[in-house]
């Protein structure tokens, strides 16, 4: 006598226990602390903050710990938490021109006011596994680190003061070489896509919000495609800046701006081929990328995709996926993508039952209508 399957609840509770064990790993190994993740996995924390849309390194580190290092899962945790937070107000736009710079480079000029500051970057390392990192205790490092510590101190002392590093965009602007965007005097508040659903066509500020939160891998692939002929832009890195900016808020009661803290951000200004029209002389056009923490790959990819999505606005032919706003913006969110792809694991046996029955039926009865033929020979007209 067949008895219906039961025990779903028990199965779930057992799975929680197994998950806990998986997360902890071998109990004889010291447990990871949030501080360790924050300090020593900074770039993971930065990515989780960026795509999680919350600037809080401690929470991001917690999410990473809870998610066993799965960053997409950690981003989900942070976003879900964010959705419960009350809104206290909006800050003033951050002024990246006043950034305290840790790193600042430009590919468009050999040298420029403020200089090229390499800062902390993997760019000019050789990607050789450093087996000295296998050593777990600090003592093993003491001899080696004294040099690097001294160098780091010098590097910090060389950190550039904002007054001597004007934005490359501003330099080009003085000659009128780069497109400018005039801000309306009644500049309306930007659309908040975390509160309302995006409708197409979406304006640029909405698109940028979407891209800022978008999955880095997806944006990287889309950006890459624009460089391989699937769009028509010839990009140059005008400037990449990494450093900290002040965040200011104007509380109603005070009526003037107060600083509520600093955040570290990465900004990328991408400069693209010049377009001209009958009313405008040829100029360079822009793509913009912005991310929390040190996230260059993300900021650069974002700037390339931003530019590609401006194709229609700039009178360019829309031909490739990276230029199709509905396509890019509908598929950039890792929560939506991961959720829907993985939902296939859920039981679908009722629908499958229907399909099974249909396929069986089709295999027994001959089709009444003519099956679609595959006449590939050329027909005479």
């Amino acid at each position: 006598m067949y008895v219906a399957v039961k025990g779903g609840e028990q199965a779930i509770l057992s799975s929680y226990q197994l998950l806990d064990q998986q997360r902890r790993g071998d109990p004889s190994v010291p447990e990871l602390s949030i501080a360790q993740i924050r300090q020593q996995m900074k770039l993971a924390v930065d990515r989780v903050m960026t795509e999680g849309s919350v600037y809080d390194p401690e929470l991001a580190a917690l999410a990473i710990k809870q998610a066993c290092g799965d960053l997409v899962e950690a981003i989900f945790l942070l976003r879900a938490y964010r959705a419960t937070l009350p809104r206290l107000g909006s800050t003033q736009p951050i002024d990246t021109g006043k950034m305290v710079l840790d790193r600042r480079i430009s590919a468009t000029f050999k040298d420029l006011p403020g200089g090229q500051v390499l800062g902390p970057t993997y760019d000019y390392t050789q990607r050789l596994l450093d087996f000295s990192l296998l050593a777990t205790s600090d003592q093993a490092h003491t001899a080696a680190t004294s040099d690097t510590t001294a160098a780091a101190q010098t590097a910090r002392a060389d950190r550039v003061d904002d007054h001597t590093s004007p934005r490359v965009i501003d330099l080009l602007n003085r000659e009128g070489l780069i497109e400018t965007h005039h801000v309306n005097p009644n500049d309306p508040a930007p659309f908040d896509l975390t509160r309302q659903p995006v409708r197409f066509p979406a304006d640029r500020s909405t698109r940028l919000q979407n891209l800022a939160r978008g999955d880095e891998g997806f944006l990287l692939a889309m950006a890459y495609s624009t460089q391989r002929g699937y769009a028509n832009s010839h990009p140059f890195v005008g400037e990449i800046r990494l450093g900290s900016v002040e965040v200011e808020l104007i509380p109603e009661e005070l009526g003037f701006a107060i600083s509520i803290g600093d955040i570290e951000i990465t900004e990328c200004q991408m400069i693209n081929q010049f377009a001209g029209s009958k009313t405008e002389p040829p100029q360079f056009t822009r793509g913009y990328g912005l991310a929390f923490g040190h996230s260059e790959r993300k900021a650069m990819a974002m700037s390339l995709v931003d530019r590609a999505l401006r194709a229609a606005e700039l009178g360019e032919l829309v031909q490739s996926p990276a230029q199709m706003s509905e396509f890019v913006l509908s598929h950039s969110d890792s929560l939506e993508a991961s959720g829907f792809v993985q939902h296939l694991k859920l039981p679908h046996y009722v629908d499958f039952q229907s399909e099974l029955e249909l396929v069986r039926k089709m295999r027994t009865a001959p089709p009444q209508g003519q099956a679609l033929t595959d006449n590939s020979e050329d027909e005479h007209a």
Partner: protein
Amino acid sequence: MLKINHPSETSTETLTSHENQAVDQHFNFAYLDERTKRMIRRAILKAVAIPGYQVPFGSREMPLPYGWGTGGIQVTASVIGPHDVLKVIDQGSDDTVNAVNIRRFFQRTTNVAITTQTKAATLIQTRHRIPEMALTEDQIIIYQVPVPEPMQRLEPRERETRSLHGLSEYGLMHVKLYEDIARYGHIATTYDYPVLVNNRYVMAPSPIPKFDNPKMHMNPALQLFGAGREKRIYAVPPYTSVESLGFDDYPFEIQRWDAPCEICGSRDSFLDEVVTDDQGGRIFVCSDSDYCETEQSKLEASAVSTAQLVSKDD
């Protein structure tokens, strides 16, 4: 007008319980903040006013992933009150893992009474099935929807489908049905079968088997549909016409089985196929677990009374 329902006199068989789980104090009742619930309820009201029309709403990130029922959960969270009695099913059963997970979420955030009995519930959240037992005016059924746009496979651009709905241009849907008949001799859609609601909007009923489509027509209960990832809510108010698309000479038909349910003997319900051995042995059992148990108890009750009748004659 949406009303929060109170469980009226329930029969002695009512199975409601409050598990020994304290409500999680870190969150608002039903998790969502009140402002969000108001936003969702406004969307629901618009949806009820325009049966079958997909109302965009500001779907929030929920503790379950997009694609796993967040739309249904947000709708339920916006209409649920402390006196509601909640039933959650997936594939017709209360015990599938996702239904359990969602039910636990609501227990944790609301502590409302829960039930597995369709007739005891005031709110039913469901994935992919409509309960076999008829619903009443005092009930709300909430469907989890993966793809709210019935024409998405034919036309992925939302900008375009929005116009088609607005202008009532549904030729494309019938083209698809025509092609099926030309190719297979019959319509090849077996679930998420498109319907015309209130003679105006073509709607995706969610991946319920077409067997369930007739239940939507003139249903006394309020039917709400939530798509979290795609950010749409739609509704079929009570006693609304819901017709499955078809042709006059190839009308809509529901599925039938040759065998009855192995457990309760029903010939009227949707049956799941269960493989019993590796020689191709298979049996069929009701998908709706509550219905099956109820039928089974009826069988047992009548077996008992037959036995009593027989013994009396001795």
